[in-house]
């Protein structure tokens, strides 16, 4: 994951854990830039910002100081810093649900109070700045499994996840003054708040920071490197834009080793030693580059760095949009140096970004669960013999006809019910020894992200059959949808009693 749970220490308070950083041109107004930082991976549906952390997004002016194997990006003061803090909980007036407010200190000294979760956000009186903070659907796509030295395509591991999101939008000309240069570098960091009465901790007060995606979890903590220490916490304690010179060689060597390892993941060497060293030097200066005078698109992520390393002038604004498939961009670059695009098992996030402020999609609802069981007197093997074939579900009294496409996992069954409705489902996994199968609903039920399992287990001399599904209601409301699914399951399971 981009920076999700990026070190043993971050496991402490997940709301301090920065997952991702974004920099893009406002879809609503091209004269404005949007910076966003997310915290708290897989936070559920009720998560709240910590009141013990300062969340900062920091921009510096940048310039290209070398190209090709001498690639170097230099940044300069002054910092343009946006710092948000959050209050403790207030009792909500209406439903008693707690509410939270926050304060953002803008680079020009203005402070802006805002209500967490308010999609309209809050704006400074002069309109220069606008801010939103609240839960959103996690836009990150991670559709690879990294196991030792191997990479395997997988579904998006962050499907249906939410994160806590801070979005700052501002007038580009007024805040960044691109007349003096249009290239910028940005990082986000979480810092504990000093407190006179507190009694824990010690300086330096840094918890987590993030520049380009995957500095920690992929580049520094490469699972393909054997017997190496986890140096992610040490990395997180570094000052952004100013890596300690004493430990810089350690990080540089790790990046070289890691990038060399990724280069050989496909069995082909695409990086010369000097180019790989230049790539490592570039990555150790970890900040995200964006150029406000050039187009920032869903595919421009890392283009500034890649073109410069290739000895060419960059063409885009780099940055990172909400919908950028940054893992595939990164993996393609470090595995085969853009020889061939590496596409993971998914290229879309749970929900795409939106064209309107705050640009990150509304949070995902909790998956609903329906589980029904029935006990029957027959042995598990006998019951499984009847119901264990995904494509032969005529034991269910509501099923009139089934049409099959394919075999094994991936097989589709198109069910026609006795009242003429059509349901399409896909077999995802089957284990006849364990007597269960798992499937997904493709169409025909008012649901999304539906995963069903049917299993038989021993129960005394007989069996217990469980039919379980998880899904998001998609249409008539939670209660009605759960009733539809529950009725389908109950009717089927009850019919088994009379068969054994």
């Amino acid at each position, binding site marked *: 994951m981009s920076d999700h749970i990026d070190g*043993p*220490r971050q496991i*402490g*308070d*997940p*709301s*301090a854990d920065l997952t991702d950083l974004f920099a893009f041109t406002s879809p609503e107004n091209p004269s404005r830039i949007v910076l966003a930082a997310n915290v*708290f991976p*897989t*936070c*559920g*549906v*009720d*998560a*709240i*910002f*910590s*009141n*013990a*952390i300062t969340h900062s997004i920091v921009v510096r002016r940048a310039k290209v100081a070398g190209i090709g194997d001498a690639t170097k990006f230099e940044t300069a003061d002054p910092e343009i810093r946006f710092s948000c803090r959050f209050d*403790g*909980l207030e009792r909500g007036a209406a439903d008693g649900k*707690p509410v939270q407010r926050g304060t953002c200190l803008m680079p020009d000294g203005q402070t802006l109070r805002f209500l967490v979760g308010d999609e309209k956000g809050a704006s400074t009186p002069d309109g220069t700045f606008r801010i939103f903070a609240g839960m959103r659907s996690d836009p990150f796509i991670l559709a690879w*499994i990294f196991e030792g030295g191997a990479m395997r395509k997988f579904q998006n*591991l962050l*499907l*249906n*996840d*939410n994160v806590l999101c801070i979005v700052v939008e501002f007038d580009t000309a007024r805040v960044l003054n691109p007349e003096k240069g249009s290239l910028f570098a940005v990082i986000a960091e979480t810092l*504990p*708040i*000093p*407190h006179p009465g*507190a*009694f*824990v*901790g*010690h*300086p330096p*007060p840094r*918890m987590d920071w993030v520049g380009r995606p995957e500095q920690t979890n992929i580049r520094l903590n490469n699972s393909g490197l054997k017997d190496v220490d986890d140096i992610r916490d040490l990395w997180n*304690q570094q000052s952004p834009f100013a890596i300690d010179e004493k430990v810089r060689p350690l990080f540089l060597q790790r990046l070289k080793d890691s990038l060399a390892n990724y280069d050989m993941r496909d069995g082909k060497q695409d990086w010369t030693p000097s180019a790989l060293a230049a790539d490592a030097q570039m990555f150790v200066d970890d900040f995200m580059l964006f150029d406000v005078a050039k187009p920032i698109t869903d595919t421009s992520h890392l283009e500034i760095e890649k073109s410069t390393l290739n000895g060419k002038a960059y063409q885009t604004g780099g940055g990172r949009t909400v919908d950028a498939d940054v893992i595939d961009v990164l993996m393609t670059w470090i595995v085969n140096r853009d020889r061939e695009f590496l596409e993971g098992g998914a290229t879309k996030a749970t929900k795409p970004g939106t064209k309107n402020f705050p640009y990150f999609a509304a949070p995902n609802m*909790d*998956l609903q*669960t329906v589980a029904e069981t029935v006990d029957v007197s027959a042995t598990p093997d006998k019951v499984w013999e009847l119901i264990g074939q995904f494509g032969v579900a005529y034991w269910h009294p509501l099923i009139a006809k089934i049409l099959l496409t394919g075999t094994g996992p991936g097989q589709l069954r198109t069910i026609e019910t006795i009242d003429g409705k059509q349901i399409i489902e896909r077999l995802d996994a089957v284990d006849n020894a*364990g007597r*269960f199968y798992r499937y997904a609903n493709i169409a025909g039920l008012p649901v999304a*992200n539906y*995963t069903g399992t049917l*299993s038989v*287990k021993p129960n005394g001399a007989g069996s217990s059959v469980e039919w*379980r599904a*998880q899904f998001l209601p998609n249409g008539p409301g939670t209660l009605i949808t759960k009733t539809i699914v529950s009725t389908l399951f109950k009717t089927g399971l009850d019919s088994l009693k009379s068969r054994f």
Partner: protein
Amino acid sequence: MTEAAVFDSECFQTTDGEIAIVNLNSARLRSWSRFYQDPQRPGVAETVLEHEQLTAQFAGDLSALDRLEAFGEGLGRLDASSARTMLIQAQIASALHRFSDARHHLAQASLGGAPSADVERILLNIDQACGSHLEEVLDERRRIVAKSGRFEDRVALGALLADVGKFNDAEDIYRQALREYQDVSPFPVAWVCFQLGMLWGELVPEPQLPRAEHWYRKAIASLPCYVRPRVHLAEIYLSSGRTGDAEAALRPALASGDPEVSWRLADVLTADERDGEAAVQLETARSGFEMLLDSHLLAFADHGAEFYAGSGNDASRALELAQINLNNRPTVRAFHQTHTIALAAGETYAAAEILAAATMRWGSIASLRLSSVAHGSPESREGAVA
């Protein structure tokens, strides 16, 4: 050096306890959802385990134990033979004090190819909780702390040092853990504060109640819903006649359903001569303990024994439970508890046998602890949830 002097450098606040609990619950429900969606996905089962353990320990939610047990069984049905399942089942069994089961699962996990570091880490916790091979465990704990310096490793070492009577060393380690802490989660901080309260209030031969009170109050300030320091703080208040403060400490924890809260509240109400209310709380405590003992006997045997030896007023049930606990984990504290209860029950022969067994196993440590006046409730710590 005073506590204040130790912590007079620049320090940082932790996340408000109420926010941390909301976030834990939110993340816990999400981890279950992810688990149901794809139970085989790397890391999802481990996250459920971690969230439920935190919930059991800090959120005052005893139903987390039932969920943990059901989770272990469910995982066994899904993926019975895998080393990963065995590792998780070992941790669940350990949390429920079913240490023999835990060792069995670990052996299976090891045979199944589980990483030896994971197996050894859990085994170390079990050995410490059972008071087995403590010299070796102590050496290993010290080695781990010297190598990793991680917060949880320091706390485990502190608990062990306290177990073997090295109280000053334990305090130093706990203080170091707080100084070195660089996170904002209130859970670890509340945990160490509670441990320091226990150290000064329960474990040292001559309890220093003002120091214990100081640390229990800090634990509660960090995490208001943390039940255990509330119970112990109320005991200190009650022992000094501050029944109003004791009741105020306990009332917010009643919703947890922890029978220990009702029991201590009954004691407070009795001291205030509110006998009717006390009787209600005592009955709630009795039925609560029996329910817990019915479902998780080994996890709550020592607590139940303490209750029945005290206001529960059933010496034979107390001795029965204390002996169950002693057989399960023959620690100094378990010997101490059983010995005290046997004496109080008039079972002098049994008490002498326990003393002899304790001396044989623990030598001078046992002599020191068992000769002292009975005080406090033996607490489960490392590897325990209750």
